[in-house]
């Protein structure tokens, strides 16, 4: 390196870097949704356990789920889960470009296919669950 003074290195804050721009904040919100997905998985696991513990435990679990706090929690989890899915759907065309001849399939088509698939699977599950 040069003998005439060293280049200056600008430090990047390890814990507050994402506060620097709205772009980074949006990224962190996307990442944070995984916490809620994990929460949802936890609720399911607890539910399974309660189911294995017999009728009373299961019904207490359901009561908790339908109580105001339980409903709010599930709505919150649902909101983040939807945002999680949406944000990932939106980037799939970049990760999986589909080329037909000299043109690429428009991103909207690929994203639309994901939403369509989501919709179909959701309806199927609801059907299996006896909702209709």
């Amino acid at each position: 390196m040069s003998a005439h003074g060293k280049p200056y290195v600008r430090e990047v804050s390890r814990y507050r870097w994402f506060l620097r721009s709205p772009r980074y904040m949006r990224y962190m919100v996307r990442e944070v949704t995984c916490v809620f997905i994990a929460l949802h998985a936890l609720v399911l696991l607890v539910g399974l356990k309660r189911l294995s513990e017999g009728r009373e435990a299961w019904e207490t679990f359901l009561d908790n789920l339908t109580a105001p706090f339980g409903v709010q929690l599930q709505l919150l989890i649902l909101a983040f889960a939807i945002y999680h899915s949406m944000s990932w759907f939106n980037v799939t065309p970049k990760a999986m470009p589909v080329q037909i001849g000299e043109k690429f399939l428009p991103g909207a088509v690929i994203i639309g296919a994901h939403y369509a698939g989501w919709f179909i699977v959701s309806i199927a599950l609801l059907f299996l669950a006896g909702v209709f």
Partner: protein
Amino acid sequence: MEIIKTDVAVLGAGGAGLRAAIALAELRPSLKIALVSKVYPMRSHTCAAEGGAAGVIKSDDSLDHHFHDTVGGGDWLSDQDAVDYFIREAPKELLQLEHWGCPWSREANGSVAVRPFGGMKKQRTWFAADKSGFHILHTLFQTSLKHPSIQRFDEYYVTDLVVEDGHCRGFTAVEMRSGQMKFIRANAVIIASGGAGRMFPFTTNGAIKTGDGMALAYRAGVPLKDMEFVQYHPTGLPNTGTLLTEACRGEGGILVNKNGRRFLQDYGMGPETPVGQPVLKTMELGPRDRVSQAFWHEQKKGNMVPTRWGDCMMLDLRHLGEQKIDERLPLVRDMASSYLGVDPVTDPVPVRPVVHYMMGGIDTDIKAATSVKGLYAAGECACVSINGANRLGSNSLTELLVFGRRAALSALEYLDNGTGTANESAITVGADDAQARLRELFSRSNGSETIAGLRKEMMATMEENAGIYRSGEGLEKACATLAGLRERFARIELHDKTNVYNTDLLQAMELGAMLDCAEAVTVSALERRESRGAHQRLDFTARDDQQYLRHSLARYRGAQPPEIGYSDVVITRSPPGVRDYSGEKSAGEKSAGEQK
């Protein structure tokens, strides 16, 4: 001063420099190669070239056609043996580039595509969308990374060639990041440093095109050849001067004046061809010098469109349609939209001729060798000459490859045959002198000028007196102004006297190079009392083959203006004729060709 020992030093890492370095590395892997550039290689101005590179490849074309197009385009000032070599090597070089991964645009069947270009009878311009130079440069740069024997010195500004006993023994350079001068001790040097368009105020050239290598060779005693021939590119953006490729016209774009008339037909390039169906070598596909000159005449008649940036002609691409423009001319659309606020899909684009290329440069022979042993030159900085008095578009990118490689071959031959006995102490004195000169520049005080001020004055006189049309009176004024500027420059004081990345120093050295080159341009232009190709005189309007079918050679004389001498042009099979870009003649020629 640190001494860096190497076998061959390449000065400039654009298309020609990289091609030379790769050639050396491939031919002789044990060779130590120093690739020295004042910028990182990907910044070299080769990246801005857009249209393409010419090489005979299609079955309807022939080497003969390329030969005649080039020689005629050069107004018979091209050395025909060199042109022969050039056109022969061209297809091989372009194929080699393809083998190195260059993303040439393709035809449906997978073979490389070619497009029409100005002054060419047949389609032979290979292209990569409208960023051909960019792709060529990056292909070469990335390929050069394969070779560990190529050692790069990025952001080193070369200050002096060290010549001892008629042999080039390397050069001194300032390392920008430290401000330290280093001596690159090589036994062969290839200069590939580009042109000097920045001596003019309106140019397609980037900031770095300041004639550094031309000045180095010039000061070391090598003549600068044909410097008066400066090419104007007809379609530059009127505010920034940046380039809108000739391919706009190759794809069918038309040029109109304020009355909507395709005025080129009034200047020997008619008859008018159908819109969107260009006929090679006529109308908008005429050669650059003729098209720029037509603009000048129309402007004098008051037929150009006045805009806030001056008079312009309109480049109309609307009939091409959005799809074709996005596929073949995407950069053009982006630039017109961003910098002018005009979308070529919906509106005509105002353009004007801007300085683009220097046909002249370091005098080399057909093997890229100069009069100094061990010193070679290739690319825009050199003048072989294949381009003569006017270059055809898309010959230059090919020239980089052909002569970049040729210079490498010559350098290798020279090294193999013995480079003479070097007097190391005399050589060191040469390097130390360069160091002393640099120190002296730093030590000056009481200066009242600025680099920018002197530069502006230089540009103003070049624009006014050495433009598309010149006169004896104007050129004399320019010569006097430049002599004065050179004298004032010799006394300039730096505003920035620090060491680390001192761009005041950089711009000072660049200005010094430009002033020397500019003086070579104006004095050569004054002495050439004829009109030929890109050099047009209002006081000598005819071409004078009797007196001036020769190359001008400008020889450096220190503070004095250069001495101008002449050398013969090599004529082999194309005796000087008339350059005819009218449609009728072309049609006649075409049918004659078909009959063969």
